[in-house]
C-alpha cells in the first residue's frame, strides 16, 4: 500500500443512476494516480457534523490521472446527505486505502461476482483484467433491472456479456447470483473467483468455490472508524486471528476467513 494522503477534493459530478444509486466523480489526483482495483477511499461528508465518522467507498473507476468515481447507494444519513452535494462542493478524501484484488500471474480465466453495489470494486478490476488479456466472466445481481446500473459498463469492458440476475426476475436470471455462479463453476475452469456483495452472498460464493476447489477472494465491508489501521474497529476473523479490514483487507482470501 502506498503512502496515505488526505486531500480536499472538489466534486465534478454527482448523478442519480438508479434507485437510490448515485455516481459521484471527484477530482482526486492523489488517489487517481495510485489506485489499485479493490482499494477504497475514506471520506468525510460535509454537513453531517452530528455524525462524526468518515464513510468508506470503493473506487469505482478512474482516469488514472485526476478523476475517480464512486458508486454509492443511499442507506443512511451520510449517503443521503451526499446526494445533496453539487459540483464544486468539496469532500476530504483519504486514500487510496487497503489491499485490493490480487490477480495471480498465471491466471487465464476468472469470474467476477458482484451483488448490489458490491459490483463497484470489481469494475476497475475488470478493466485491469482486460488490459492483461485475462478471460473474464461477470455475474452481477440487483433487486430490479433499474438497479443493475453497472451492466453497461461491464459489457463495454469485458469480452463476454455479463450475466445479470434480478431478485424480481425483471431482467436476466431470476434470483440470486449464486444460481449462475453454481452453473459456471460446474462448466468452466476458473483460476480465481473475485466476489463482493452482501455478506451472505460472499459466504455462499465462498462455499461454492471451496466445493469446486477454486480459489476465491472477497471484499469485506466492516464498519470503520479510522480507516487507516489504528483503531481495530474493523476486524475480520481469519484463520490467522483478527485482521483489520481497512489495511489488511478489504480483500481477503475466502479460505482464510472464519465466518
Amino acid at each position, binding site marked *: 500500500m502506498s*503512502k*496515505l*494522503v*488526505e486531500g480536499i477534493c472538489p466534486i465534478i459530478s454527482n448523478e442519480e443512476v438508479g434507485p437510490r444509486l448515485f455516481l459521484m466523480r471527484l477530482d482526486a489526483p492523489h488517489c487517481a494516480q495510485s489506485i489499485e482495483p479493490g482499494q477504497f477511499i475514506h471520506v*468525510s461528508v460535509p454537513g453531517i*457534523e*452530528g*455524525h*462524526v*465518522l*468518515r464513510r468508506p467507498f470503493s473506487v469505482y473507476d478512474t482516469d488514472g490521472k485526476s478523476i475517480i468515481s464512486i458508486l454509492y447507494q443511499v442507506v443512511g444519513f451520510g449517503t443521503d446527505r451526499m446526494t445533496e452535494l453539487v459540483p464544486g462542493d468539496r469532500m*476530504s478524501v*483519504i486514500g487510496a486505502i487497503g489491499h485490493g484484488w490480487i490477480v495471480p500471474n498465471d491466471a487465464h480465466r476468472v469470474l467476477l461476482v458482484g451483488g448490489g453495489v458490491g459490483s463497484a470494486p470489481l469494475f476497475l478490476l475488470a478493466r485491469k483484467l482486460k488490459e492483461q488479456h485475462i478471460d473474464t466472466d461477470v455475474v452481477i445481481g440487483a433487486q430490479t433491472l433499474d438497479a443493475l446500473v453497472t451492466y453497461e459498463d461491464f459489457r463495454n469492458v469485458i469480452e463476454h456479456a455479463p450475466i445479470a440476475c434480478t431478485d424480481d426476475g425483471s431482467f436476466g436470471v431470476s434470483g440470486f447470483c449464486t444460481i449462475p455462479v453454481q452453473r459456471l463453476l460446474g462448466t468452466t475452469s476458473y483460476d480465481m473467483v473475485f466476489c463482493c456483495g452482501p455478506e451472505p452472498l460472499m459466504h455462499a460464493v465462498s462455499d461454492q468455490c471451496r466445493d469446486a476447489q477454486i480459489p476465491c477472494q472477497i471484499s469485506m465491508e*466492516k*464498519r*470503520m*472508524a*479510522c*480507516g*487507516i*489501521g*489504528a*483503531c*481495530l*474497529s*474493523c*476486524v*475480520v*476473523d481469519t484463520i490467522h*486471528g*483478527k485482521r483489520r479490514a481497512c*489495511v489488511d483487507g478489504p480483500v481477503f482470501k475466502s479460505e482464510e476467513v472464519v465466518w
Partner: protein
Amino acid sequence: MGIDLSVNLGGLVMKNPVTVASGTFAAGQEYGDFIDLNELGALTTKGVSLNGWGGNDAPRIAETPSGILNSIGLQNPGVASLKQHELKALEAYTVPVIVNVSGHSFDEYIKVIESLESCNRVDAYEVNISCPNVDEGGMTFGTHAPSVEKIVGMCRRATKRPLIVKLTPNVTDITEIARAAEAGGADAISLINTVLGMAINAQTRKPELARVVGGLSGPAIKPIALRMVWQVHQAVSVPILGMGGISSGTDAIEFMLAGATAVAVGIANFIDPRSTMHVIEGIRSYCQLNGVDDVTTLIGGLQC
C-alpha cells in the same frame, strides 16, 4: 513573542500539552503518513496487557449522535510484542512515549510494568483501571476507591517513572476515586475514559455492538469530561491529563481552564488524522491572540 507551550505532567516534560488518547492512535506508525510524530507533546500507545487479548467480536463500533461507541475490548498482542515491534519502531523518533497499561488482576499490571522497565522507549505509564478486575469478582478496578489506592500503590512501587492513572467516568463521585489514586502515589490523573453506553438497531432488534454495551466517546461526552476535570482539579494536587471529545484548540483550552495540564486527542484522529496538529496550532494561536506567553498560566484559570 515566543510562546512557551511546554508543560510538566507529573514529571513527564512535554514540549506542548497535546498527546493522543490511548487506543485511537495505535503506536503512531499509522499516522506517520499524515503528521510528524515528533511534533506531539507525547505519544500514548494502545493499552497493553501481559500476554495479549483477542478483544471482542465485530461489530465493534457504532456511530451515535456526536459520538461513537466502541467495544474493541483492549485487543493487543501483549507486552513482549509491543516492546519488540512498536516500541522498537519508535526508536526512530524523539517524541516522549506514554505506555497505556491494562490488566485483569493486580498482578498482571505489575508484570506489564516490570517487563517495560528495561525498555528505554518508555517515558511514562498510563495505568488504565477501567478493566474488569478478576481479583475483585469482575467489578471494574476503577469504581472502588480502596482497589484504586491498592493497585496504584503496587504500580508505584514497581516504577520510578511518571505514573499516570486513568480513571473511568462511570462512578458516582470521581473526586473520591481521584483522591484514592493520588493517595496511592499517582503522579498525574488522566480522565476520562469512555462512558458506558449502548445502541440498538430497531429493525433487526439487535444491539449495534456484538458485545451489547460499549464505551461512548467523542464530542457528545465533552461536557461530562470537562465537569470531571474541573471537579478533580479542585480535589487533588497532582496534574491532570484531560480528554473526551477534544478536536480543536478551543476544546483543549477549555480543558486547561477547567484544570488540565495536558490534553489527549481521541476519536478526532479518526475524523481528521491531522487533528493533533490542528489542536496544537489552535492552542498556539489562542495564546497569541490572548497575550498568553506561558500556556501553564491557563491551567485551572476558569473564572467562576
